[in-house]
């Protein structure tokens, strides 16, 4: 069986790839496009380490097929910083020591950015429930939540 040709956009750049019908978008990102920032922690949509956005919507890329990205716009951790400028969420993760091993960090940052893109002023409870699909085993989430809330406050300040 021949591979399927897909035309899509990754982090704003027009991108084409070939994939098998059964390949997950996560496998395409990691193995074909060499964007290894998205991680596989479970392959079943339970851990959130592979979080990306598809046309702006937060999804687990392990639950999306590579062929489903045809004509869509994909956002991954590699596209969160603009050039040499970190996104405020990335900067706050560093300042608040919101990562230990760092494996869940790309997924959490992508998920947190999706939160703040849709809700610039979340309560702590809203942030905790939004990020409940992103497992972190190291931190107990305390510093992650603080980093996200601080980033939200800073971004609101910048926008005002």
């Amino acid at each position, binding site marked *: 069986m021949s591979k399927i040709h897909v035309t899509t956009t990754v982090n704003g750049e027009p991108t084409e790839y070939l994939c*098998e019908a*059964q390949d997950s978008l996560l496998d395409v990102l*990691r*193995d074909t496009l*060499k*964007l*290894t*920032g*998205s*991680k*596989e*922690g*479970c*392959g*079943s949509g*339970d*851990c959130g*380490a592979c979080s990306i956005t598809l046309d702006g919507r937060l999804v687990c890329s392990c639950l999306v097929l590579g062929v489903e990205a045809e004509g869509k716009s994909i956002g*991954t*951790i*590699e596209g*969160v*910083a603009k050039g040499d400028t*970190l996104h405020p969420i*990335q900067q706050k*993760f*560093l*300042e*608040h*020591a919101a*990562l*230990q*091993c*760092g*494996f*869940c*960090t*790309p997924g959490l*940052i992508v998920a947190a950015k999706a939160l703040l893109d849709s809700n610039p002023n979340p309560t702590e*409870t809203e*942030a*905790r*429930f939004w*990020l*409940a*699909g*992103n*497992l*972190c*085993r*190291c*931190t*107990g*989430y*305390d*510093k*992650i*939540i*603080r980093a996200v809330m601080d980033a939200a406050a800073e971004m609101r300040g910048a926008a005002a």
Partner: protein
Amino acid sequence: MNFVANKSDLKVVGTRPIRPDGMDKVTGKAQFGADLTMAGQLVGKILRSPHAHAKIIKIDTSKALAMAGVKAVITSADIPDIPSEEAFVGEGPTNFRDMSLNCMARGKVLYEGHALAAVAATSSAIADAALAAIDVTYEVLPHVIDVEAAMAPDAPVLHEGMITTGVDPKPTKASNIVKKVAFSLGDWQAGMKEADVIVEEKYDTAAVHQAYIEPHAVVASVNPDGQTVIFASSQGQFMIRQYTAKILGMDIANIRVTPAEIGGGFGGKTLVYLEPIATALSAKCGRPVKMVMTRDEVFRASGPTSGGTIEVKIGAKKDGTITGAYALVKLQAGAFPGSPVAPACMCAFAMYDLKNVTAEGYDVVSNRPKVAAYRAPGAPISTFAVESAMDELASKLGMDPIALREKNAAKAGTKAAYGPVFPDIGYEQVLAAAKAHPHWTAPLGKNQGRGIATGFWFNIGGESSASVFINEDGTVSVVSGSPDIGGSRASMAMMAAEVLGVPYEKVRAIVGDTAQIGITGMTGGSRVTFATGMATVQAAESVVEQLKKRAAMIWDISPDAVDWKDGEAVPAGANAGGFDPLPLAAIALKAAKTGGPIGAEISINAQGAGAGFGAHICDVEVDPDTGFVKILRYTAVQDVGRAIHPSYVEGQIQGGATQGIGWALNEEYVYDKNGRMDNAGFLDYRIPVASDLPMIDAVLVEVPNKRHPFGVRGVGEVPIVPPMAAIGNAVKSATGIRMHSLPMSPPKVRAALDSGKG
């Protein structure tokens, strides 16, 4: 370097700079175990047993080998049949033969998920098809899962010829009981006779997994001359090198292991699973082989830590003085010997100054995956029982639980039941900080309760290597042999910067591969900041001595007449001469003319680790309809010695406490009647998520460990020890019911509310 007594003399230690590896980790550039691709690499996969216990009658790999794209197939026939050899590895005893048999079964499979063949193929799909084409004939044997069932006289025996050690008389018949251990001080039974009040309780805990988010991953490449490179995620690149060499009969010098970034370990990555298999596959076909476990494999074939039962008996006078204490601990080892029963016994009563105490236990095999270390191995299990029983004792005595602990607190000079006399420990200071915390006296609402529990971990030192090099421009490079799980590169850079007197930003630290730095023990036992930190400090001190000599040469005076102050060489007093200070960068610039490159590598076996103690206060609300326990507020107090980077110390405490919360409320291995795990995924094995938790208030008490120049104690393990009892005690306070079994999941709590008995 002498102990720096005055904290205000420290300029870098105690600050919160950004970690050097942080930028790579927030941008997705960091390379974890599964992120490296080697040219021409194949996909390796493992065939695992569907049975809990079975004889392997025959493995036919011919169909798999004949498939297009399949480059190698191996079974135990391709792995050396090594003899039994006892060793102390990771955080407990093991046997290299068992380790080999755990990587690849020989003759018998001992648990569901046990590896028995492996393939390397050009694609994942072909590897899967090849596994399906391997024909295995099994003779299924009776199995046993639970610890007390495995100890029964009629239980199916896993290992013919396993005769229990540590009991008198020596048994004549094989059983699943590996050994008995006992730690005693005085006469606990005599102590009970002096008691006014006695509590006697039995508890049980479930097996739980370390549940690091990154599955095990490796790429291995073997050349025809035997030279091998391995890129893998683990808690010790030297561990992988040594164990792989041992299991495959290779020369250690032929193996170079590069540590990938590690996506969590918590003790679970202190062993090899995939590395010898990927290496053997690569040796067979001459191409690099990459292997990555699925989450299902991680649950079924790696980790977990033991579940077990704990019987505890404590007697006390009316004033709260404990007169005698006893614990009997029975722990699952999994399919091969080596549960953490010894540390479970040693830690059980270590918080208390007791005259009459015995803690004894059994190491028991059953048809479960072989346990691996998990954060303070064994201590959380025994401490759940002891600290729950202490709460019952306080209640029977009508005493405040903190007051009861203060009355019996271990302090400097206390002899622990397991042997040593404690030096400067901080348990009393931890209790005082807990008592003074506003959380302890805050009001509670309906269906709410508060619990407190304490815990202990030894912390260890051990073998560590570090090097410090001065670069041409006066910046500094630090290399250590310790994989960085929670910010240790930042700590190493901070300690080197402190000794050299230069800004943190001028020092960059990396983790070396096995050819770049001397042998270093694993990241575990809460040893890295202490032991590898000590090696880093000593290397930096050696560099300072060299810098002083170079300055003396430039000034043409005696090296004794030079001092090192704030990153500069200065004349040591008026008699030395009136020279302007020479900054490090100026000396570095002239290094070639004053004797060549400046640097030092230090390898040590660090001694003098300081024991750690913690006290956790927890508020819960119990839903009377569902039995759901919500954590409302959590405070974790701990003696950390001195925090090098307080944010990462707090992070260790918050993360450890949260793992304990999962252990207490949700996590457990569930088996069906065939001995197969029923919940091998994150949907059904539920670790805490952000919405389950409040903020975790980490309170750092600093009682410095004077055997480290900056006062460091290990911090990573203590915080997983108190949570289960703290939560159980809070549930008791909220409902009046003592929960004796973990996890305290909604169905169990609801059943306890209905029956009045937990």
